């Protein structure tokens, strides 16, 4: 019993900061539960959300999770920056610091950026390609619940058992039992494994959706660029994620079942882990940034009032990037010393990626050229993205110069580089998409004035945070150190950087406030087309109805909706409306996620009966799924007609 308690509550989860977080979690949970009970909303929650197979609702749930991830990861970041603000600081201890940078990186990549991307895929892709649903609605819900329960599992680590502490890259042999006996790394391994299954399923789902469910007439080369980016990203997912699966699985076998893959003794080979990790890891950075490229391509065309410049080149460059991205992974460990020939090869292949990326940048600029640019919030993020990302790419090329990398590697220069591309590319893109598609999700636009405040705080905060980090890297400050002495010339840049981080925090708070404000003072979007958009999602009312399209559109050009508007073909004919069949809701995906959660938790603590019970649940639910069809429900034509009459888009 005492042993169990010691395992569940090691000193690392009993620090005041952790206990404070526990208390706020308990309070928040109780408050939410009380609210749901008082408003009698539990049934509603289950029926409308937890069992939904509607891709738009799933998208919204992904979005909520991503915002929670951004909050948790952001708090972690502020704690790290607070510790580094001044030399010889004692705010966090070494171990504590390790845990926080580990959870920060892991959450930002897997539980913020990934769900945010999937949120926008889910919300926008079927609407943009004129589809009534995704190819596999129930699998889509399964993906979400695997992700959500994995997120829960990962976040539990700091409440019970202790956080992982070997960095988001979790390099062996530091993750091996001998050096890392606590359960923290198990949380990392299992949570990522579970969400990884869901991610692969999402990749398959969107591949099939985009390849097979496009509206009549929408050839591949007429697809919106965001759909192209989703297609390419999905193919990257299904071919890159298995490498992560293997890297994590082998580490887990070492830790839980005594194999000798990445151990120091027994002829293990830690470098193999690093290779596997980055064979996934480099494609992963493009899994993150290609969707952002897609969003920007939509936003820039819409707010310049022009068709995207160089569409075929945009598609071609994305394909080129995705192929090249498999051939560059060694640039993450030039210093391993693989020899001049290997390093030269990977240095050059890395630099090559800058070429298609440059093509894209020019095309975005030429799209704005001669257009009437409207600086809405969505567009502001785009405008900020271009110079920011260009600088991030340029420092990437500097890192790809192998002799240079021997200096820059694992210094703050590297830290600045990848934040430059991940924030300046991915996060800016996601925020842009958030503002852009918000009305399609909820039926009202976000407050633009507050959005601009959030934007400026975030953007300026970003540069104040990360520019000094380039300098710090050049001054020799290495990443992942928790303390540094006076007199190295590091003090001022660190202090400035911390100040910038707080400014970004303010930007985030304004954004959240603005979302709450906009939800109360709804600026309704009655047209369904608030931005004068070009693609099909703007052809329907906002928020998008459950059945997406009352009548599936016929496409004859790129920017299909724009063409329809030009030709005055914006309304649908009454007679064409037919009953619509949609899949029924089901609780199976939620329960499947729960079973995986139980299995994962059991494995984290090596409670094998619990783990087996969880796996048994998984199998039982799968078999149940084979035997019991969930069935469909039909929306009668008159109901479709009624809901389409409201926005007045019907023609007799």
């Amino acid at each position, binding site marked *: 019993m005492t042993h169990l308690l010691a395992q569940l509550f090691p000193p690392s989860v009993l620090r005041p900061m952790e206990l404070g977080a526990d208390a706020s979690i308990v309070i928040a949970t109780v408050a939410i539960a009380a609210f749901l009970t008082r408003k009698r909303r539990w049934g509603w929650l289950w029926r409308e959300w937890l069992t939904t197979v509607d891709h738009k609702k799933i998208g919204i749930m992904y979005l909520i999770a991503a915002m929670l991830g951004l909050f948790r990861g952001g708090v972690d970041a502020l704690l790290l920056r607070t510790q580094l603000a001044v030399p010889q600081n004692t705010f966090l201890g070494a171990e504590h610091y390790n845990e926080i940078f580990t959870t920060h990186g892991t959450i930002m990549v897997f539980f913020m950026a990934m769900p945010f991307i999937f949120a926008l895929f889910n919300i926008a892709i079927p609407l943009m390609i004129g589809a009534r649903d995704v190819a596999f609605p129930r*699998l889509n819900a399964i993906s979400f619940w695997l992700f959500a329960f994995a997120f829960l599992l990962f976040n539990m680590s700091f409440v019970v058992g202790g956080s992982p502490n070997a960095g988001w890259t979790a390099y062996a042999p530091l993750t091996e039992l001998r050096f890392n006996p606590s359960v923290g790394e198990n949380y990392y391994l299992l949570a990522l494994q579970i969400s990884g299954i869901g991610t692969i399923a999402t990749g398959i789902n969107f591949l*099939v959706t985009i*390849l097979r469910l496009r509206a009549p007439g929408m050839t591949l080369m007429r697809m919106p660029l965001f759909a192209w980016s989703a297609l390419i990203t999905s193919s990257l997912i299904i071919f890159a994620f298995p490498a992560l699966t293997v890297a994590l699985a082998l580490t887990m076998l070492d830790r839980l079942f005594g194999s*000798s893959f990445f151990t120091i003794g027994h002829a293990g*080979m830690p470098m193999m882990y690093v290779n596997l990790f980055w064979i996934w890891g480099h494609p992963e950075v493009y899994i993150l940034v290609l969707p952002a490229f897609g969003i920007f391509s939509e936003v820039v065309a819409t707010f310049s009032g022009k068709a995207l410049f160089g569409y075929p080149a945009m598609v071609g460059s994305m394909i080129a990037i995705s192929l090249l991205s498999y051939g560059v992974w060694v640039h993450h460990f030039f210093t391993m010393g693989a020899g001049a020939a290997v390093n030269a090869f990977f240095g050059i292949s890395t630099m090559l990626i800058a070429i298609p990326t440059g093509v894209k940048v020019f095309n975005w600029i030429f799209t704005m050229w001669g257009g009437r640019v409207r600086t809405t919030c969505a567009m502001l993020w785009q405008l900020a993205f271009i110079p920011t990302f260009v600088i991030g790419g340029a420092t990437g090329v500097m890192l790809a110069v192998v002799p240079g990398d021997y200096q820059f590697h694992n210094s703050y220069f590297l830290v600045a580089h990848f934040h430059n591309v991940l924030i300046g590319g991915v996060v800016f893109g996601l925020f842009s998409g958030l503002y852009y598609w918000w009305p399609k999700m909820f039926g009202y636009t976000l407050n633009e004035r507050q959005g601009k405040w959030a934007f400026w705080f975030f953007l300026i905060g970003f540069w104040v945070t990360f520019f000094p980090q380039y300098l710090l890297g050049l001054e020799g400050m290495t990443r992942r150190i928790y303390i540094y002495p006076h007199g190295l010339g590091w003090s001022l840049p660190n202090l400035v950087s911390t100040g910038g981080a707080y400014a970004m925090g303010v930007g985030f708070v304004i954004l959240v406030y603005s979302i709450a404000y906009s939800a109360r003072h709804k600026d309704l979007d009655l047209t369904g087309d608030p931005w004068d958009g070009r693609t099909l999602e703007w052809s329907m009312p906002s928020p998008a109805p459950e059945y997406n399209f009352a009548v599936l559109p016929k496409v004859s050009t790129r920017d299909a909706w724009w063409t329809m508007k030009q030709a005055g073909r914006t309304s649908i004919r009454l007679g064409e409306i037919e009953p619509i069949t949609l899949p029924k809701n089901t609780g199976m995906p939620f329960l499947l996620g729960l079973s995986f959660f139980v299995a994962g938790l059991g494995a984290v603590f090596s409670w094998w009966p619990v783990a087996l019970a969880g796996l048994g649940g998984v199998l039982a639910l799968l078999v149940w799924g084979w035997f019991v069809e969930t069935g469909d429900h039909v929306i009668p034509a008159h109901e479709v007609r009624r809901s389409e009459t409201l926005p007045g888009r019907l023609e007799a």
Partner: protein
Amino acid sequence: MIGQVQTDARERPLEFRDRRDNLAILGFWFFLGSDVVLFSCLFAVYAVFQGRVAAGPTPRQLISLGPVLVETVALLTSSFTCGLAIAAMRRGRTGPLAAWLGVTMLLGAGFVGMEIHEFATDVRLFGTWHQSGFLSAFFTLVGTHGGHVSFGVLWGAALLVLLWRQGLTPRVARRLYTFSLYWHFLDIVWVFIFTVVYLAGKIT
């Protein structure tokens, strides 16, 4: 585009008739593509770890081809019987379909049984995988395939029950068809394992 009917839907094989089944089959192909990458990574790990034997056995010492040949014959035959099952399905003959599927499952279960026996013997003679990187890679590569086959046996058995309960509907036909793709895929992976792990291991 979906279910865009070039030919009369009724002329297509049963499993391709329904729009959703059509989609599911394409999705399953993508899943198999993803699984190919998974096995490729494990093969790469094995290739690197082959010589990392520490104090444990070398591939040559570990491997005895006799039982493995029997396993191979069992699995290859099961792929053939699985093909016969699908051929029977195409002709709409439920009896032979169920029979051949049953034979496939038995051969699969036999394969798994023999592999477990092989592994147990290995551990008895040479100790656990803790001993070396090579043993870890060997058991993981071969075991991942074996795990896939075991799952396949459960899946096939469930499908037999499904067939018995629901008859040969398009949905059931599609499930049988994707199962057969999975099963042939495992056969191909095994051919690589047999060559790369067993034959090459015995020769070098």
